[in-house]
């Protein structure tokens, strides 16, 4: 790992001002992706700005129709939250199956979505539930936030402050996990909301996406049978040692069916 200057600001404003003074600065949250990347010398920031000292970015607020999760809230805290387990149990289950307990004790929602790994779980929940990403300067619909392979709409100096999840009528998540890392080979999040049914897929393509045919079928009948014969095209799907593109396409249908079965 190359050396860097370490900063631990205690407010969003202080973090931004350190960022603007840096040569090639980077925020660090749980460090579960960034620190290994720096160890491999694939990232070499001049300044590392630790967001852990900013209390305002941590915590979970339950409101009448939504749950708001601070960017620095760990996976362990989301999975254990009584409010989330009650209002959106599918979200708690999704987070409980991220990596392993040690990764969940450090990894955060802000770090996970800023990184936008094509196999990460959170993007499916954000797009599936129609969540809003709140930053230091604006609010973005989840679908506009995740823009491509490891790409988001964030400006280099933009800081995610929280994520707001509308409470669905019912939701479910099913993932076919990589047996080594637990990242999703394919994960499907299904939600029935006041605004209609949403189906979001992670792991299969370069970036999370929705499946309109499945959403339409589920809107007329919210049942596993409604999606079990709907196939998706594998034309831009990922293909690697873990699974071929056609196999991933097959898994999308199977996981969608299981997600509907699990919905509560």
């Amino acid at each position, binding site marked *: *790992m*190359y*050396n*860097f*200057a*370490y900063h*631990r600001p205690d407010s969003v404003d202080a973090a931004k001002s350190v960022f603007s003074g840096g040569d090639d600065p980077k925020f660090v949250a749980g*460090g*579960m992706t960034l*620190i*290994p990347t*720096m*160890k491999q010398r694939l990232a070499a920031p001049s300044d*590392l700005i*630790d967001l*852990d000292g900013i209390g305002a970015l941590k915590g979970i607020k339950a409101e009448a129709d939504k749950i708001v999760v601070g960017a620095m809230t760990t996976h*362990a805290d989301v999975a254990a939250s009584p409010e989330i387990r009650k209002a959106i149990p599918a979200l708690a289950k999704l987070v409980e199956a991220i*990596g*392993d*307990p*040690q*990764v969940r*004790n*450090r990894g955060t929602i802000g770090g996970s979505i800023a990184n936008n790994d094509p196999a990460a779980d959170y993007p499916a929940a954000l797009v599936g539930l129609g969540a809003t990403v709140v930053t230091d300067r604006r609010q973005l619909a989840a679908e506009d936030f995740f823009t491509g392979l490891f790409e988001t709409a964030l400006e280099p100096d933009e800081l995610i402050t929280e994520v707001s999840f509308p409470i669905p009528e019912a939701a479910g998540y099913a993932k076919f996990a990589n047996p*080594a*890392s*637990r990242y999703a080979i394919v994960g499907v999040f299904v939600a029935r909301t006041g605004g209609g049914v949403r189906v979001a897929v992670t792991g299969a393509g370069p970036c999370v996406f929705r499946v309109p045919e499945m959403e339409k079928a589920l809107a007329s009948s919210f049942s596993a049978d409604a999606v079990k014969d709907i196939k998706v095209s594998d034309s831009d799907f990922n293909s690697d040692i873990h699974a071929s593109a056609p196999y991933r396409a097959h898994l999308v249908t199977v996981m969608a069916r299981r997600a509907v079965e699990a919905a509560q």
Partner: protein
Amino acid sequence: MRTTVSMTVNGRSVSDEVEPRTLLVQFLRDNLRLTGTHVGCDTSQCGACVVHVDGKSVKACSMLAVQADGREVLTIEGLAEDGELHPMQAAFKEHHGLQCGFCTPGMVMSAIDIVKQHPDPTEAEIRESLEGNLCRCTGYHNIVKSIVAGAKTMRG
């Protein structure tokens, strides 16, 4: 670029100069000579480096020493009291929860965190919670057995 870090390790206040890039595991092993915490993979997969920071299990190879500044760290060396093994260590010994022993410090530290979450853990809960700890020798069977037994003693 050096900076001073101070933390409590196994109940003792320690302080030293480090580079910001110093990993917590390097600080423990190289600065404090607490070599019970192992480095198995260095890529966040194996869990040989698991320690507790403020009571939660973390991989010390994926955290910087500066990120542990001001916190309480517990390593495998801090478990035994007055020369007597911690109940979880004793259970690993009793139930052959180790062969070469390389993964053992991380296994024991993870096991104690598992018991915090599940005071009476089922075998399935243990296996699931050991997702981040790899063992190349035992086949896990006796590790799971040890944790069931260690949890029982810890419950009293």
